[in-house]
């Protein structure tokens, strides 16, 4: 064992790095933990995807063919919880773990053991979410949570054992995210290379700093809300029961105080990484670094005060409706700043279109559709028509699949050579992009029309006039799902071998992370670099 390279591991100077499974159970290394987060995320992406393909299969034709409505309800709720909490959030945390120490010139994350705990809380939570499906097979309970991911009272107060499992899964996921956020904040505040002021910090790090603060502000409120739900269910309280002076709408307030910032929690890391990718493949510096930083902050702050637009049809008083409408619409201002900065970064650049760049440009176009349809939904009068329809489903999948997941794919293709030391297959990557972007639109574009025509969300059966668009959507979803196997295969191939990646990987890269070898050494920056301008 070469001990000379491991001088940072405490007084003995030895790293007793165990091998095999024990390495992953015990690791305190930010790269190992990042790899675990990303692998877990990919696995759960397929789990959540399989659930929703079953749902789309049921929706291929009108009528009930494949499953009971109760099981349909369980699938859509757990699909959302899995995709949000177990696929998208861990992917972003995996990025943070891998890239933040490399980008800011740190040896590791600030709190390495806490970091490991943050990851190992995820598998228990994922088991709690999905266990009721298995228990139901043995006649225990009536399956997983069947309320949709929003857990609205009173349905969730009356629901079966699956609701309890979901409540505790959310508690554990929340603890995991808060621990991760504390670690990221401590790292960004304390571990930056000398000379890297906050305003010089890379945008990806800024995106995560705002994300971490939002998580710490909002997740405990969700924890409080689901705790009230638990006591209403089992300990006789009346938080959400009018008979005791409570109100089911209170749950919606508590849920969406978390739920709306959650959208930005999912998207800010992606907005942070986009400018890096656009700048690399346009071979130009990032346009408007400072403007983007303040846009992140503005979106974070505004995101905390607009939650009511998720239930504008629930009977809020008119002044509240107006407030939530205008405050929501005002978010489009800082978001527009980001869009124009992305475009300006590409403007007159020497652009090339490797896979990450394709995903980045696809992201801008499709996420733009999410933003514009969001403005439509923010309008109180229009929302009265579109609320709870497939229009909403299409809108948030443009935001969270095209914005979130495609953003994650951008990052994976961009950084994979840095992580593995090998280039992935560009041919497969491009095929994956085109299949994804075409089948994504095939799946979700028809859902806008379905929603405008009046098809409600969360139903297993529908009227005949919706049949054609649903059939198209189902075909699209299966192509979309299957093309993701290409993604997994490409990653696996890249881990196994391939053309050697240079330190800088891409032609136009800038920043500390590209100065280290690919893959980087065990302790990323044993000696901190000093930043001079």
């Amino acid at each position, binding site marked *: 064992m070469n001990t000379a390279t491991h*001088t*940072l*591991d*405490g*007084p003995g100077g030895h*790293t007793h790095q165990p091998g095999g499974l024990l*390495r992953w*159970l*015990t*690791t*305190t*290394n930010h790269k190992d933990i990042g790899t675990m987060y990303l692998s877990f995320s990919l696995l759960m992406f397929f789990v959540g995807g399989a659930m929703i393909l079953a749902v789309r299969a049921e929706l291929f034709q009108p009528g009930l063919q494949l499953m009971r409505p109760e099981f349909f309800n369980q699938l859509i709720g757990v699909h959302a919880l899995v995709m949000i909490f177990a696929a998208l959030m861990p992917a972003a945390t995996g990025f943070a773990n891998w890239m933040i120490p490399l980008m800011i*010139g740190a040896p590791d994350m600030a*709190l*390495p*053991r806490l970091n*490991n*705990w943050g*990851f*190992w809380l995820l598998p*228990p939570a994922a088991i*709690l979410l999905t266990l009721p499906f298995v228990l139901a097979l043995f006649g225990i*309970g009536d399956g997983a949570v069947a309320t949709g991911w929003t857990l609205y009272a009173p349905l969730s107060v009356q629901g079966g054992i699956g609701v*309890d499992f979901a409540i*505790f899964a959310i508690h*554990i996921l929340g*603890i995991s995210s*808060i621990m991760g*956020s*504390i670690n990221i*904040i*401590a*790292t960004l*505040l*304390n571990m930056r*290379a000398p000379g890297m002021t906050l305003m*010089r910090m890379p945008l990806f790090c800024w995106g995560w700093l705002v994300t971490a603060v939002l998580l*710490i*502000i909002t997740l*405990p409120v969700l924890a*409080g809300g689901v*705790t*009230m739900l638990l*006591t209403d*269910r089992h300990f006789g309280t*009346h*938080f959400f029961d*009018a*008979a*005791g*002076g*409570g*109100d089911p*709408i*209170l749950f919606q307030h508590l849920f969406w105080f978390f739920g709306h910032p959650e959208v930005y929690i999912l998207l800010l890391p992606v907005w942070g990484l986009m400018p890096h990718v656009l700048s690399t493949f346009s071979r130009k510096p990032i346009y408007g670094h400072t403007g983007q930083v303040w846009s992140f902050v503005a979106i974070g702050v505004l995101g905390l005060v607009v939650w009511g637009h998720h239930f504008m049809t629930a009977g809020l008083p008119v002044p509240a409706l107006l407030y939530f409408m205008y405050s929501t619409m005002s978010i489009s201002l800082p978001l527009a700043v980001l869009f124009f900065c992305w475009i300006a970064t590409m403007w007159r650049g020497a652009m090339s279109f490797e896979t990450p760049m394709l995903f980045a440009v696809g992201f801008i176009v499709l996420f733009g559709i999410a933003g514009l349809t969001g403005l439509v939904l923010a309008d109180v009068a229009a929302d009265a028509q579109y609320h709870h329809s497939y229009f909403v489903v299409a809108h948030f999948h443009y935001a969270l699949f095209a914005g979130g997941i495609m953003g994650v794919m951008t990052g994976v293709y961009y950084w994979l050579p840095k992580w593995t030391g090998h280039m992935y297959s560009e041919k497969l990557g491009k095929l994956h992009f085109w299949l994804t972007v075409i089948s994504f639109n095939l799946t979700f574009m028809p859902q806008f029309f379905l929603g405008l025509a009046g098809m409600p969300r969360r139903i297993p059966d529908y009227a005949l006039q919706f049949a054609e668009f649903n059939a198209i959507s189902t075909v699209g979803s299966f192509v979309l799902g299957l093309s993701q196997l290409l993604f997994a295969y490409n990653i696996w191939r890249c881990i196994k071998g391939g053309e050697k990646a240079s330190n800088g990987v891409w032609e136009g890269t800038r920043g500390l992370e590209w100065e280290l070898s690919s893959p980087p050494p065990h302790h990323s920056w044993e*000696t901190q*670099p000093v*930043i*001079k*301008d």
Partner: protein
Amino acid sequence: MNSAHASAPHSGHYYVPQPSLYPFFLSAGMFLLALGFILQMNRFAPGPWVMAAGAGVIGFVLYRWFGAVIAENQRGDYTGWEDKSFRPGMVWFIGSEVMFFAAFFAALFYCRHISVPALAGMDPAFTLYKDFTAAWPSAGPKGASFTPMGAWGIPAINTALLLSSGITLTWAHWGLMKGRRTQLNLGLILTVLLGVVFLGFQAYEYHHAYTELGLTMGAGVYGATFFMLTGFHGFHVTLGAIMLAVVAGRCLAGHFDAKRHFAFEAVAWYWHFVDVVWLLLFVVVYWL
């Protein structure tokens, strides 16, 4: 932005702990505790046993994990650089706790100022609860009737106890800063004792509420917010008292000096946070 690989102004040596099994087992313990609780609430026989196993694992791992951290600290593994990571860590952790309490305070304000008046103000043609009038405290239209808890008995005494404990803790801190170890130890022990007496009064108050006032978890939104707010606060006092007791034990063992005592400060921050939550509770739950 150019970088030069010169050595940094820190010692340049950040302590990255050895690989550790504690986090994995702590997660496993939490899984068992949650699973057991779910089973117990839904009346499956193994529930309490699974819960007990989970709690046991959690307790054991925390004991060992914190023990390891204390040993690392005493060995001198942590320098000023690590210390600067711990501080924002603790601050943001307390921040998350603040938001957890904020959810319950928000529920209290919502029920008091929005849902109860709205229920009383509904058009008689459209409501089940024609005779319900808005007042506070309220059990709602159908909650169990109760007598509210007065502010100027035990709650006022408890306020005095917690405020005094904040003073004794600061007195102990002064002792630490000036090297007066007896003052430090005495101040900490007094603080723990005041916390324990507070919890004793709280337990008595709950007993009184349930047996004589009819004030229960089921007593409408007042009972719900009362017990959840004071209950979670009491839980935090318990945690704080345990942490203070550990710090007191470390002080008796000669740990900490005027310059290096992050654990003391972190626990002190936590204790003051719990104190401030109580003051808010006293004003909006008991008094107004």
